[in-house]
C-alpha cells in the first residue's frame, strides 16, 4: 500500500523532511511520511508507520538504512542519520513479538508449579498408593525448598530488579524456552520426589555433606542476587546506557575483579550444589546444559564489553576465573 499526499508543494518543506519506507526484501514502497520533524526519533517514525500499517506494531518493525544492514535504534534521531532531504528506510518484519517480562514470568512460574506437583505427589504421576504422600527423606524436603526458593527469587527479580535493553523477543521463543525450563523441571522433580529415590548414602555423604551443599546453594543464590542488583544500579531507570560493572561494597560483587558475568558463575555454583545435594543424574544434565548456554552468553557479553570499552579490565574472564 502506497500512501502519498498530493504534493504540489516541494518536499523540502522548511523544518521537516519526507520519509519513505521500503520493504527490505521486495523494495516496494510501503509508506511515505511527509512533514516529519528533523528531530524526530526512529521510535516516533515507527509509530507513524504503525498508523498506516496497523498490523506491524512498532516492536516488530526493524528499520534500517540498508536492506541488509543493522536495525536502527528507537533513540536515533532523524537529522543525525546520513540521509538526504527525503530519508529512505528499509523495513523488515521481525514477526510477532512478546515482551521479555511475559516470557520470563511464564518460563519461571512453570518449574515452580510443576516441581511442587511432583513433591506433593499429585495423582497419575506415581503409583496410586503414593498419591499425596511425601518423601521420608529430609534431603527431598530441602531440595523442594531450594528449587522453589530459586524460582520465586527469579520471578521477583523479573518484576523488580531486572532492567531489559530490549522490550520484546520473537513469539516463538516462549515455546522454546518454556519447553526447556518446564521439561527439565518435570524430569528432575520426577526422580527427586520418586518413592524409590535414593538419597546420598549415609556412609559416603552425611548430614554434614547435605548441609554443606545447602550452604553453597544459598551462598550462590545471594551472590547471584547481588550481581543482579549491582547490574541494575549501573543503569538509571528508563535509560539504556551501558557501563562497566565494578566491585561494590557488597563482598559478593568482589568477584567482578575476576569475571565479567559473575551472575552466571554463581548460577552454576547453585546448580552444582543442587546436583551434589540430590545426587540425581537429570539434575547433572540440566546443570551441564545450563553451563554450556551460560558460557556462550558470557563469552558474547565479554566480547562486547571488550569491543565497547577500551579500558576494560584485562584480568577478567567471561565466566570462570582464569579458566573460561
Amino acid at each position, binding site marked *: 500500500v502506497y500512501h502519498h499526499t498530493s504534493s504540489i508543494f516541494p518536499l523540502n518543506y522548511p523544518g521537516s523532511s519526507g520519509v519513505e519506507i521500503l520493504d527490505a526484501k521486495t523494495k516496494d514502497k510501503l509508506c511515505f511520511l511527509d512533514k516529519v520533524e528533523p528531530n524526530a526519533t526512529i521510535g516516533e517514525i515507527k509509530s507513524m508507520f504503525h498508523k498506516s500499517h496497523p498490523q506491524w506494531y512498532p516492536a516488530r518493525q526493524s528499520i534500517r538504512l540498508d536492506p541488509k544492514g543493522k536495525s536502527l535504534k528507537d533513540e536515533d534521531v532523524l537529522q543525525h542519520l546520513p540521509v538526504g532531504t527525503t530519508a529512505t528506510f528499509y523495513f523488515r518484519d521481525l514477526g510477532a513479538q512478546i515482551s521479555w517480562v511475559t516470557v520470563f514470568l511464564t518460563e519461571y512460574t512453570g518449574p515452580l508449579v510443576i516441581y511442587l506437583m511432583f513433591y506433593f505427589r499429585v495423582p497419575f504421576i506415581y503409583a496410586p498408593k503414593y498419591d499425596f504422600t511425601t518423601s521420608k527423606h529430609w534431603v527431598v524436603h530441602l531440595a523442594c525448598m531450594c528449587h522453589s526458593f530459586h524460582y520465586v527469587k527469579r520471578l521477583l527479580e523479573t518484576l523488580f530488579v531486572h532492567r531489559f535493553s530490549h522490550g520484546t523477543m520473537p513469539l516463538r521463543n516462549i515455546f522454546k524456552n518454556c519447553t526447556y525450563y518446564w521439561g527439565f523441571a518435570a524430569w528432575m522433580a520426577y*526422580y527427586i520426589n520418586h518413592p*524409590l*529415590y*535414593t538419597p546420598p548414602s549415609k556412609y559416603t555423604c552425611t548430614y554434614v555433606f547435605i548441609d554443606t551443599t545447602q550452604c553453597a546453594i544459598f551462598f550462590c543464590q545471594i551472590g547471584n542476587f547481588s550481581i543482579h542488583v549491582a547490574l541494575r544500579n549501573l543503569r538509571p531507570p528508563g535509560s539504556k546506557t551501558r557501563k562497566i560493572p565494578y566491585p561494590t561494597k557488597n563482598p559478593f560483587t568482589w568477584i567482578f575483579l575476576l569475571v565479567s558475568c559473575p551472575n552466571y558463575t554463581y548460577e552454576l555454583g547453585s546448580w552444582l550444589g543442587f546436583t551434589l545435594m*540430590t*545426587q*540425581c543424574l537429570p539434575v547433572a544434565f540440566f546443570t551441564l546444559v545450563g553451563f554450556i548456554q551460560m558460557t556462550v552468553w558470557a563469552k558474547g557479553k565479554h566480547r562486547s564489553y571488550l569491543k565497547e570499552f577500551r579500558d576494560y579490565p584485562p584480568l577478567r574472564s567471561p565466566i570462570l576465573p582464569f579458566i573460561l
Partner: protein
Amino acid sequence: MSAAAPGTSKAAHSEVGPKKKKGPGALATAYLVIYNVVMTAGWLVIAVGLVRAYLARGSYHGLYYSIEKPLKFFQTGAILEILHCAVGIVPSSVVLTGFQVMSRVFLTWAVTHSVREVQSEDSVLLFVTAWTITEIIRYSFYTFSLLNHLPYLIKWARYTFFIVLYPMGVTGELLTIYAALPYVQKTGLYSVTLPNKYNFSFDYYTFLILVMISYIPLFPQLYFHMIRQRKKVLGHIEDYSKVE
C-alpha cells in the same frame, strides 16, 4: 533417515548467477575428493556384496549377514562428515548433518546390530538397499562436483531417485524398529530402572516408540525440502558446474 539431506544444504546455496564463494583450499579439496571416492567405492562394495549373495543363495532373505561388516564400517565412517562441516571445509549445517548421520548410525548399531533377532528381517534389506543406492549416487555426486565435472546424469539421479528411495528407506527403518520392540521389552535392553544411586531411569522400549513417532513430523519436512531442492536445481538446466 535414508535420504541424504546434508548435501541438500550445499545445493541450497547454488543460485542462478555468479556468486563469489570462498571454497575449501586445495588440500581440503584433495582430501574431500579422496574421502568421497573411498565412500563411493565402499558403498559399491556393499551393493556388489548384496547382488552376489542374492545370486548365490537364490533368495533375498538374510542378505544382511553378507554385507554386515562393510555396512557398519562405511556408515560409521560417515561421522567424519560432521567433522567436515564443523571445520568448515563443507558448507553444510553441523546440526543437520549431525542429525542425519547419527540417525543412520543409530539404526545400524543401536537397532540392527544390538537386536540380533531383527537381522534376518526383510525390512533390513529394504533400508540397506535404499541407503546403498542413495549413497553411491550421493558420494559420486560430491566427487564430481569437487572436480568441477558433474555429469548431468548424476545430478539428475541425486535429485530424482530419492522420490522412491526415501520412502522405501523410511519404511524399512520403521519396520525394523517395530520388529525390535518385543525383544527390547523382553530383555530390558539398554534400560535402567529405579532404584539406583544416580536416581535415573531410561526405558529403551519407550524411547524406540518415541523415535518412531518422531518420523511423522520429520519425514515430510525432509522429503518436501528435497522436492523443493529438485525444482530449484533441475529447473535450471544451464546451471551445471558451480553446484557444490
